[in-house]
Every structure is written in C-alpha cells, then in structure tokens.
C-alpha cells in the first residue's frame, strides 16, 4: 500500500451468545475513546455497539484444498480488511466479534496464510468471554464453546457475581485443563484492565514464553507431588485430572504439556513435528514451545495453529538451564503418543 508500515493489531473476541462479548467490546471502545478502532461484527449482540466504524458481515468460510480444515480461511474478513487497509488514515486497531458458534481456527488462519491480510494486519490475540453461570452446560452441549476456550490467549470468566466461589473454582479448573496457556481473569460485566486483553502478543514468538510461567508453575507443582524425578516428559494434566474426581466426563478439548531437560536432535525433531502436524494438525488448535536443540546455543521457540507453525531461534540460553517446554491444545490429543514422540527426539 502507500508505504510499508507497522501492521495493525487485531483482537478477536469470541464466546457463546450472552457471555458478554459485546459488553467487553463496548468497554474497549469507551476506554479507547479517540483511537481509531474498526469493529467487525458477525452477529447482532444483545447490546448495541455505539461506534462509528462498525462493519457487519456474515461469516463466510473459504474452503481451500478440498476442504482441509487447516486451509480454511474467512473470506468475509479478507474482503473487509482488504477494503479497510485502503484508507490513508489507518486504524489503530481492529476488533472482530465472532458469532457464538464461530470456529476460531479459520479466523486465526486468515492472519497467517493470506498474504494481503498479513501485509497490513497482525493477529494480536483471541479473547474468549465465558459465562460463569452457564458455561458448564455449554461445555457439555456445544463443541464451539470448547473450541473457543481451546484457542484462547485470554479467557474472561464473566458474570462471576451469579455463581458461588466453589462453582467458580470448579469451572476455572475445567478451563485450565482445556487450556493451561491462556490467562484466565474473573470479571463482572466484563470489567477488566484492558492491558490484559489488548496487545497481548498471543502469536508473537518473541513473547511465546510470557504465557509460560503459569504452565510451568503447574507443571512443577505436579512434579513435586509425583515424587518421581523421571525427567522424560511430564504430563501435568493427567495428574490434575486424577485430583478431580467429581468430573465424570473426559473433555474432548484437552491440553498436553511436556517439560523435560535434555537436548533434542534437530533432524528427529523436525521429522516428528512435520509428521505430527501433517497427521494431527486438524486436531491441534494451538501449540507453543521452547526447545533446546543439540549443538545450538540459541533457544528454539515455536508456536502454531493447526498445521501452520512458526518457529525460530530466539536468544542464547545463557545461564538458564537448557530444557524443553511444549504445550499442545486440541481435540482428542493422544498424550502418550505425544510424549513418546517427543522422547524419540532426544539426542543420544
């Protein structure tokens, strides 16, 4: 376009109908008064959006390569963003409010595969608003709600005033099990410090590990309990699961975390990840990791959505102990297979 410029950050707000997406949207618009924010809405919310630049659109999936789930992109977003970027006075940011039934996969993939979109926009984060009172039911009934939690960088556990502390903790534990990478915040009326939902860098490799501490803390916590210092790939979720005897059902959306010292063989790692994405990419929503590769001074960081992976060396390990940390979030993940696959990459 006119001149190479910084890509415009895009925040995607998902959540079931009535969870409070529009309330959050209005809060962002009110508190950022004076900034140029374009809003793309995929459904009429229960609360009107009072804003100059609201574009309503119908969700339209472009199927590419014979409908492979990993190649689906959102045609409506490509078209709208393509027109928005024509303006000289560019927007400061874009907010996309999806329908309650939207699959976040094609939304995210649009920002990684469409060259025109990539040129002018960058996906900053997926914020999922969850109705603390009703989400239990939605989790059981509605695949899309589980997917929206699985894809999230930030989860607002909203309407906390309508539930007891015990119910809240139970819901939060369930969410954590599905997605240990996301930051979870308890809110009433979607009231939140906006620095927690905007500019979160959810897909930014440089910040791939900013989201890690919670995950590591959990992992280490489990680790201590296990009294088993076998460093071959931890799986903290299994442990958590055992603790929650009141949960009858296995979630289809789960996460698998692996943490292990030991250097990885570059060739084996590349083969394993390549095969994994090709064969299981459809079921993997998000993945992130920091790896120690044998013979490399730099940490290798990666993140991905479905089959799309972005990875590179980021900085030297320095004094930090070399170790591997990986998180996969997805549907029906086979934790044993993932752990074994990972272990097979350890250098001799």
């Amino acid at each position, binding site marked *: 376009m006119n001149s190479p410029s910084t890509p415009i950050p895009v925040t995607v707000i998902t959540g079931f109908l009535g969870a409070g997406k529009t309330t959050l949207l209005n809060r962002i618009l009110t508190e950022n008064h004076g900034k140029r924010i374009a809003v793309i809405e995929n459904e009429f919310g229960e609360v009107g959006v009072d804003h100059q630049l609201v574009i309503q659109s119908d969700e339209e999936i472009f199927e590419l390569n014979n409908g492979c789930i990993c190649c689906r992109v959102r045609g409506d977003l490509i078209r709208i963003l393509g*027109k928005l970027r024509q303006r000289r006075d560019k927007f400061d940011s874009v907010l996309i409010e999806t329908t309650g039934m939207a699959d976040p996969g094609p939304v995210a993939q649009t920002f990684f595969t469409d060259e025109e979109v990539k040129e002018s926009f960058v996906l900053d984060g997926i914020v999922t608003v969850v109705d603390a009172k009703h989400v239990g039911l939605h989790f059981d009934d509605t695949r899309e709600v589980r997917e929206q939690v699985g894809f999230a960088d930030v989860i607002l556990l909203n309407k906390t005033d309508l539930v007891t502390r015990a119910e809240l903790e139970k819901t939060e534990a369930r969410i954590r099990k599905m997605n240990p990478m996301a930051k979870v915040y308890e809110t009433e009326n979607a009231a939140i410090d906006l620095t927690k939902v905007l500019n979160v860098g959810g897909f930014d490799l440089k910040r791939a590990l900013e989201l890690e501490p919670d995950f590591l803390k959990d992992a280490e916590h489990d680790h201590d309990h296990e009294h088993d210092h076998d460093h071959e790939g931890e799986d903290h979720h299994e442990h958590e699961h055992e603790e929650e005897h009141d949960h009858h059902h296995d979630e289809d959306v789960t996460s698998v975390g692996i943490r292990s010292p030991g250097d990885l063989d570059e060739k084996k790692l590349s083969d394993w990840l390549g095969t994994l994405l090709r064969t299981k990419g459809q079921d993997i929503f998000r993945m992130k990791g920091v790896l120690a590769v044998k013979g490399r001074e730099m940490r290798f960081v990666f993140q991905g959505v479905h089959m799309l992976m972005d990875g590179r060396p980021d900085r030297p390990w320095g004094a930090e102990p070399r170790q591997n940390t990986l998180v996969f979030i997805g549907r029906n993940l086979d934790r044993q297979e993932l752990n074994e696959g990972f272990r097979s990459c350890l250098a001799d």
Partner: protein
Amino acid sequence: MIASSNLRPINFVWHGKLDDFNTSLAWSQDGKQLAAASVSGQVAIYDASAGRALHLFEQAHADGCDALAWRPDGKALATAGRDGTWKLWDATDGKILAEHEAGAMWAEHLAWSSKPIGERGHLLALGAGNQVALWNEKGERTGDGLKFTKTVAELAWILGGGTLAVAISTGVSLRDPLTGREERAFHAREAILNMAFSPSGKWLMTGNQDCSVHVWNTDNGGEMHMRGYAAKVRQLAWHRGSRWLAAGGGEVISVWDCSGRGPEGRTPLMLEWHTDQVSALHYQPEGDWLASGARDGSIAVWSPTQRQNQISRAKISSGVTRVAWSPDGKLLAVTGECGEVQVLAVE
C-alpha cells in the same frame, strides 16, 4: 531488455486529485467525461478533454465510494458505497436523481447493461452483500431482487445485456434478467474473488483465493485451472477480440491465447518489466494495446503480440489503483493510492 529510445513518448495531458485511495474510475461511453471515486467518499466528474472538474461531490458516500457506472446515455452517473446506499447523479447539473438503500452495509458493485433489456430499457445491476437488485434508467427498482448464499464478488452483463452473471465465492450463476431464473451455474472448487467474461461470452475466467485463474469454456463446459501465480489474480483484462486474456497476480503479466480450444496446453506470453505487484490492467476497447499499472506507481503500455511488446512507460507518485482507456483508446486514465487522477496520451 528494451532500449528506452524505442519507446513512444507519453504525454501527461491533465491531472486531478482526490483526497485518498481511488477505488473506481469510469469513462462515459462517448468519452467526454471521466468519473473517479475515493475511499474517503469523494466522487469527481471531469471534462475529459480539458481536465476541468465539472462536479465534485465531497461526501457522495460516507466511509467510501466503491463503485461507479455511467448510464449508457452518459447523462447520469450511478455510484455505490460503504454507507449502504446507491445514488444516481445528473451529470449536467450535479443533482441527485435517485437515492436508495442497497440492503447491506456495503454496496460494492454496479453494472449497466449496454443494451436495452426488453421494454425496461437499460438496467443497472447493483450488488450489495449477498443481494443483487435491478434498477431502471430513472433509478426505479425493477423486478424482484436476487439473493445468493454468499457475498457477491462480482457482477457482469454477458453480451451487453442478455444475461446477468453473478460471481460468489463458490461459483458463478447466470441469470435471466427478466425472470431472475438461473440459466446456468458454474461451481468452483477454489474460492472465487473476481471474474471476467470474454466479450464473445465463450470464456469465463475467475481469479481465486489460491492464487490461480480458473477457466470455463461455456460452449462445451470444459474447465482448466492455471496455478503458480505469485499473488492473487485480482486483475483480468480481455482483448476486444476475445482471443487474449491478460492476468496480473504478481510482477509479471501473463497473456493467454484463448483462440480455438483455449489456453490449455499453451504457454502464455509473459510481460516482464514491473518490479512491484501489478495492480491494474485494461485493454483498449477498440485497439490492441494493453495498459498496466503496479503498486510502485509504474505504468506501462504493451502491444503483447509484437516482438518489441512494450510501447511506452510512465510513473505516478503512488501505487496505481486503476487504469482505463477512453472508449476511442486515445487517452489513458490512471488513478493512485494517494488520490491521483492522471490522464495520459501515448504518441
């Protein structure tokens, strides 16, 4: 390489300026007027010989004007935009003759039939969201609207008006404008972004999300898919004789020979000179020259089948958004990302 000395001089005849990215450009059929529109919502009508702005509508459409179409008599201009309306302007006094809601947030496509359709006269097809509506020369609604399952990507009249072609991402539907009935449908495997029917009506080409061009031979239903473009092919231009189709989709322009059995198995002519992505293409309506513009502001005029195929070159200060030859092919209008409206003449 072509020696520049062999190129024909190009003259900057006159220029105008809108205040932001030019989205649309249209010559009146008699070539006497030129209209241009901007993403800011401005629409200007120029006297094509003198370059004087006859009318400047500052806020023709709030949030941007996306489409322009001259009524075939050249006395009125239809505009459509991101305020969800379309308007018909009297080109003489600048007054609004008709103004209507288009039925969607953005009204993006306009096309007048070049032939009268039955007793209804020339019809204007308007595409907004997933709907297409027809309007008459007075700006009155005619017939029932057509609804599609996806957003309309492009509209075109085949052979000047017998059939209306509507492209959506999943295919192209040919409709009888009088009854609205679907006469024929072409289903796409890859999402369609735009389309171009050959003037003969035989060839239907679409540019697609997977950086390809898809071809249908409407005579025998034959299809082919041409991959390998560096970018999405958003520019498709037909030669008047329906033999040559020029396509963008990167820095190189490919020109396909569609004579006889069509482009299958043939190698296109490759026009290489632009060093940035080609953003606009147009063949002379009555001649053989192809004009191209790129995102770095470079402009070229080609005679693709000649051994020395490049005829002339020029540059504007921002990226080219549209190129359009006047009906007699003597003047070339070019618009830019910063609002430039430049009219050129190749000697």
